[in-house]
Structure formats: structure tokens, C-alpha cells
């Protein structure tokens, strides 16, 4: 890739330099990352895992294509026929996906595209609690018991 040559990350992470055989320029080469699993939340998916994201994609499509296995969680499971009417709107093809879970508000406390915003109050509570093991454990138990969670 371009750039990064002057960064301390090259030595600290053991990145190697390679020569582009065409331009003869030297570039930093980073080893491919191959996660065992990618867990990606989307707006809509069918039972096969064909997944549709609205708005920002960040690195999620790349992540799905790099990972050995993919779990899609979604706001709503829809019929394949719905996606077949506009296949170019599908971001991740189902054959790369091992499992689909319908999980409304599943991105909480983060945002999900333009469907709902991030939960600012919860992040504030998290930031405060993260300063002590006790407060953090209490907050997490509230989350696990369902006392704190997404507004449905």
C-alpha cells in the first residue's frame, strides 16, 4: 500500500517492504487479515444471508469477504423475492454467510444505518462505569438482565 513507510508501525508490527515490479517503487506490504468470524448487523437479510445495508458501509462488506465465516444479524428477515427485484442493492451475497439471526435493535448501543441513532445516554453511562470494575460489572449485569437495553 502507499504511505505508512515513515510510521513507527512498520517496525513495531513487523511490516515488510516490497518493490512494485512495474513502477519499481517500494511499498509497505501488510499481511492479509483473515478473521475466523465476522459478525455484521444489517437492516435487511433473507434466510440465505443476502444482506442489505442502508447508508454507510464502513468496512463491513470487505470484512464479510475476508472472513472464513460470517454471521448476519438483521433488523428484519425478508423474502428472497424482495431482494431479487433489486439485486444490486444487496451488499453481501448469501453464499458467504453461515447464519442469519433476526435481532431487531441488534446494533444497540450503536446506531443502525438510518434506522436508529446511537444511544448517547448509554455510552455516557459506559464511560462513567468503565472507570471502576465494580461499576462496570453492575452496568453489564443490568444489560444482561434486560434492565438496560434498547428502546423497542
Amino acid at each position: 500500500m502507499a504511505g505508512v513507510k515513515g510510521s513507527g508501525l512498520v517496525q513495531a508490527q513487523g511490516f515488510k517492504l516490497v518493490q512494485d515490479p512495474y513502477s519499481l517503487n517500494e511499498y509497505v506490504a501488510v499481511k492479509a487479515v483473515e478473521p475466523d468470524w465476522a459478525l455484521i448487523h444489517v437492516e435487511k437479510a433473507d434466510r440465505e444471508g443476502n444482506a442489505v445495508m442502508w447508508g454507510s458501509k464502513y468496512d463491513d462488506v470487505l470484512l464479510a469477504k475476508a472472513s472464513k465465516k460470517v454471521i448476519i444479524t438483521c433488523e428484519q428477515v425478508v423474502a428472497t423475492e424482495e431482494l431479487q427485484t433489486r439485486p444490486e442493492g444487496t451488499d453481501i451475497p448469501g453464499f458467504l454467510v453461515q447464519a442469519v439471526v433476526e435481532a431487531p435493535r441488534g446494533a444497540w448501543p450503536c446506531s443502525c444505518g438510518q434506522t436508529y441513532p446511537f444511544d448517547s445516554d448509554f455510552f455516557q453511562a459506559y464511560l462513567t462505569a468503565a472507570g471502576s470494575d465494580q461499576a462496570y460489572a453492575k452496568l453489564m449485569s443490568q444489560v444482561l438482565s434486560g434492565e438496560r437495553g434498547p428502546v423497542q
Partner: protein
Amino acid sequence: MSVEEQSNMMVAALARLLRDGETAFHGVASPIPMLAILLAQKLHAPNLTYINITGSVNPNPASFTSSTADPVLLRGTASIFTLADAFDLAARGKLDTAFLSGVQIDKHGNINMSAIGDYAKPKVRLPGGAGSAFLTETAGRILAWRTRHDSKTFVDRVNFITAAGARLDRVVTPLCVFALRDGELKVESIHYYSGPQEVQANTGFDLHVEDVPFTHPPTKQEMDALNEIDPDMIRLVEF
């Protein structure tokens, strides 16, 4: 000096550095650059192309949250230009300006976003900055900003060079504007409410601060436009 005045000055100072017709990018946690770009577009740079980490192109946000990776920044975009696309654009030499910050910035303009102390056994592990390492060597220039100006932030040498400083152009702080010239940060202007002694006392390396001009205060035109863009004062969240 109130944080309101500091935030106004920082947004205005950054906006003035942007040029009409250029392409500018910011990432996460960047409310001040976001507002500087929107302000510049509204005033002197209507043909600036604004891209950001959400993938929007020249968005027209109606409101903001404290996050600059928020879908509110998608409003009005007619296409999605992903983060990978933005990096490719920089690699092709077509990204004119990228906004970056750093936990430490040193006198040579190097940025540390990786670790305080030793990288392998840090006292504090920082968020990381592979994107910064990439952009500081590929974007046409880097405009940096930091809402904290003290001698822990502006240091003689960073603990770790996450992003090398060669293409750093300016750093805007609550006290002054630094310009990287001949490989060293020099004070270009001191904000109207600060002064040479305050800038030097809060910087961890020696500066030439005498006979440095003052940064022009935000004009009425700049303040009117900024208040229109940001009536809810999201520009304060970084302080």
C-alpha cells in the same frame, strides 16, 4: 477565555485554510473539522468537495450528534464513497487535504496515536492510527487540530511516531496556529485572546513567539454562518 470563543476561533481558523475547489476529508471524532469544512463551503469555498468517514459526498446535514461517524452526515449525499474509496483516492494523489489529530504532536509534526510510554509495554494504549499513518504520506497536506494545548500534548519528541509529519501543513489549537516550515513547527499566529507567554508556557519545546501576528478574531460573517450551521453548539463537544 471561554471554550465558546476558543471553539469559534478554531473552526474559523481551520475554515480559512481551506481552498475553493479542493477535496477535503475528515474521519471519526472530528466535529471541529466537520464544521470548518461546512463553514468554508458556505463562505469562500463553495466548490470544495467534502468527503468523510460516513461515505457521504457534499452532505447537507440538518443537525449533528457528538459523533462524526453518524448517519446525520449522510443527509443530502447522492452517492456513497466508502472509506476504502477515500484511501484509494489519497493513494492516487487526488485527496488534497486530510484532517488529523493526535494525543501527542511533536516539534517536527509527528503524530502519536499509538502509545504513551513504550509501544510494546505502554503506560497508556491509545486508539491507534493506521489511517493517519497512511494519510500523512498520501494526502496533499494534513491540517491538524487539537482542542488541548499543553506541554503534554505538544512535545519535543513523541513517544511513538504513528504518523510521520512531513506533509503536516498547519496545526490549529485553542491558543495559536502552528505552521510546519523547514521541518519544524513555528507559531504562525497567536489567537487574539492569548499571547506569546501563554503559548510558550503551554508548549513542550522552544518557540519563536515574539513579533508573531495575532489570528484575526472570527468575523461577523463567519460567526453568522457558523451559528446557522451549528445552532446547537456541537463545536463544544471536543473540549
